[in-house]
C-alpha cells in the first residue's frame, strides 16, 4: 500500500515537473507581453510586471498588417489541411487495401523519405517552385505540403485495423472501392483522421521557415513571418514580439484544447509521435 503510494507520489512529481517545463515558456511570453521595454531585459527578471502594459497588444497589432497575415494564414492552413487529408486518405487506402504492382517497394520508398530531414528539402523545393514561377504566391505556401507520408503511414495503420470481412461484406453488398472508402473506412477512422488534420493545422499555422523563404511581400505572408517585424538590426522589441506571439498562437491553443482527445487518440494508435 505505502509502496504504491510512493510510486504514485513519484509519478505525480515527475508529471508536475514536465508540465511546468512545458508551461514556463507560455507564462514567460504572457508576462513579457505585459512589460515595458526596459523591464523585459531587467536582471534579475521579474515574473509579474509592476504595471501591466495592455496597450502592447494594440501597438503590436498595428505595427504590421496582421489582419492580412491572419487571413493568409487562414487560407493556407485550410487549403493545405483539406488537400493533405484528401491525398492521405486515398494513399492510405491504396497501401492498406488495394493490390498493385510494386506496392511494397513504393511503400518502402515513401517510408524512407521520413528519414530525410525537412531542412534538406528547402533548396530543391525552392528551385522547383521558382522554375514554375510560383515564388511569392499562395501556390508556394500550399503545394509542397499537400502530401505527408507521416500522415499516410498513420492512417494506413488505422485502416489496416479495420477487419477485411467488412471490406468483403461491402463488396458483396455492391459497394465500390471508392464508396467503401468514403462510407465505411473514413467514418470508422474518424479519430485518426481528426488527429492528422489537427496536427497539420497546427503545423501549417506555426510554419515559419518556409513562408519566410518563399514570400517577400506582405500580400502573401503569414502570421509567423509577420512576427519578424519586431526584430531589426537595432535589436528586438521583446514586449511587442511577445504580445503579437500571444495572439498568433491563441487560435491554436483554442483548437488544441477543444480537440486534444483526438490528437492523443491518434498518436497513441499509430505508435508514433508527430
Amino acid at each position, binding site marked *: 500500500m505505502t509502496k504504491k503510494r510512493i510510486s504514485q507520489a513519484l509519478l505525480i512529481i515527475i508529471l508536475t515537473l514536465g508540465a511546468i517545463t512545458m508551461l514556463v515558456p507560455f507564462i514567460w511570453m504572457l508576462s513579457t507581453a505585459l512589460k515595458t521595454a526596459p523591464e523585459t531585459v531587467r536582471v534579475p527578471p521579474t515574473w509579474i510586471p509592476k504595471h501591466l502594459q495592455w496597450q502592447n497588444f494594440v501597438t503590436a497589432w498595428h505595427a504590421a498588417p496582421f489582419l492580412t497575415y491572419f487571413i493568409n494564414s487562414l487560407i493556407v492552413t485550410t487549403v493545405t489541411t483539406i488537400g493533405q487529408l484528401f491525398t492521405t486518405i486515398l494513399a492510405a487506402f491504396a497501401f492498406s487495401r488495394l493490390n498493385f504492382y510494386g506496392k511494397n517497394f513504393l511503400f518502402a520508398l515513401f517510408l524512407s523519405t521520413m528519414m530525410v530531414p525537412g531542412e534538406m528539402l528547402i533548396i530543391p523545393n525552392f528551385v522547383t517552385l521558382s522554375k514554375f514561377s510560383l515564388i511569392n504566391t499562395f501556390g508556394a505556401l500550399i503545394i509542397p505540403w499537400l502530401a505527408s507520408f507521416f500522415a499516410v503511414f498513420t492512417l494506413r495503420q488505422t485502416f489496416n485495423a479495420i477487419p477485411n470481412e*467488412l471490406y468483403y*461484406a461491402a463488396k*458483396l453488398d455492391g459497394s465500390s472501392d471508392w464508396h467503401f472508402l468514403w462510407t465505411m473506412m473514413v467514418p470508422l477512422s474518424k479519430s485518426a483522421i481528426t488527429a492528422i488534420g489537427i496536427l497539420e493545422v497546427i503545423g501549417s499555422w506555426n510554419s515559419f521557415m518556409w513562408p519566410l523563404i518563399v514570400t517577400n511581400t506582405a500580400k502573401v505572408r503569414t502570421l509567423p513571418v509577420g512576427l519578424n517585424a519586431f526584430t531589426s538590426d537595432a535589436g528586438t522589441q521583446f514586449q511587442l514580439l511577445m504580445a503579437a506571439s500571444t495572439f498568433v498562437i491563441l487560435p491554436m491553443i483554442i483548437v488544441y484544447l477543444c480537440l486534444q482527445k483526438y490528437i492523443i487518440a491518434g498518436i497513441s494508435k499509430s505508435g508514433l509521435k508527430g
Partner: protein
Amino acid sequence: MSKRRQYNNLSAQIFLVHAFQYLLTIQFTKGCLIVDVKFQNVSLAYDNVNNILNNISFTIPEGQLTCLLGPSGCGKSTTLNLISGLLSPTGGQIFFGDQNVTKKDALARKVGMVFQNYALYPHMSVLDNICFPMKMAKVKKADRLKRGRELAALVHVETELSKKPSELSGGQQQRVAIARALAKSPSILLLDEPLSNLDARLRVEMREEIRRIQKETGVTTVFVTHDQEEAIHIADQIMVLNEGKIQQFTTPNRLYDQPDNLFVAKFIGSPIINTIPFANVRDDFKTVVPTSVLSDGTTVAIRAESIVPATDPHDHLTMLPLTGTQVQSNRFGRETSLSLNYGGHTIIADGFREQDLGRNGKSLQFALRPQGVFVFNQSGNRIWPETVATNVSPLKPTEVIHA
C-alpha cells in the same frame, strides 16, 4: 350443423396457414432465383504450388441447407469463397443453375454472405445495415425501408432497428447479419462458421433459427462449420472435406450410419468411434464377415452405443459373446461411460445400464449390435458392411430425410 361449422373452421385455418406460408415464400424469394451450385473439376492453388482444393466436383442441390464440414485447413472456407466469388479458381468451372459464373465477380453472382465475425457496419444502425445492399442496388428509399423492416421481423430484431451493432448481443448481431445477407434477394446464402462466436446455449438456439429462416425463405444455403454436431443438427446434407478432397457427401444420418471411410467414421459422432487393429480381433469376426474382408480388413471401428451387454434383448451380430476387461466406469446423469480393454485397446461403450456394469479389473461379456460396426481396409475405405455406394452424388431433394 356444428360439425359442419367446425369443418369449415378447420379448412379455413388450413387454408390460412398455407396462404401465409405461400406469401412468406413469395415475400422472401421475390426476385431471387433459387438455383443449385455445380463445381466441375475445380482446383485452387496458391502460388501454383500448394493445392488447397484438388480437382473437386459436386452439386449442391437447390433450396436446401448444405453443410461443408471438416477440420481447419481442409478447404471448406476456400470452397465457400469460391462459391461467393471472393476467390477465383485456378482450374475448373462453377455453375449457378445453367449459368457459368466462373468468371463473374462476387457482386454479379448475387450471393448473400454471413461472416464469422458478422462484419456488420459498426457506424450504421441495424436498419441501415439491413438496407445497405438495397441502397447500393438503388432501391427506392420507401421500398427498401419497408423490406428492411420485413426482414428484421423475419429474424426477430424488429425492436432493435435504431441501435448500433455494438449495442446488440452476439445472437442479435448474427440475426442482423443474416437479414442483411437476405436483403439483396440472394440466389445463394453463404454462412462462414456463423455460430462459432456464440456461447453454447445461444449456438443451439441460433442453429434452429438459421434452419427456420432457411426453410421459410427456401434459399439455397451453404453453411461452413468444423463442428460435426452442429452440421448434423442443421443440414439437409453434409459434405465432409479433408485435405482439399471430398470425403463423403450425403445426408447427416447416412454419414453417421454408413461412413465411406475411416476419416468420416472418426470425424462424425461423439464420443469418437472406437478403432481397433483388425488383426487383434479377427477371430471374433470369423462368423460375421466374408473371407475377403477377413483378409483385407486392417481396422475395425465400433460406435460406443453399439457395444451392449451380452444379455441385452436387442439383435446382436451373430458371434459368440465377446469378452473384455472392465477398466473404468462412470455415470454422468443419465449417461454411463464404460472403458473396456478389448483386443489390446481401450474402447468406450455407452450402451450399458448401471446394473449391467461389472467391477473394474474383472472381465465382462458384451455383444455388438449390427449398426455402427465397420471394417476398413489399408487405404481407409469401408469394406464391410457393404451397401449401395453413396459417395457418387448427393441425394435428390425428394430423397432427403431429416431427423
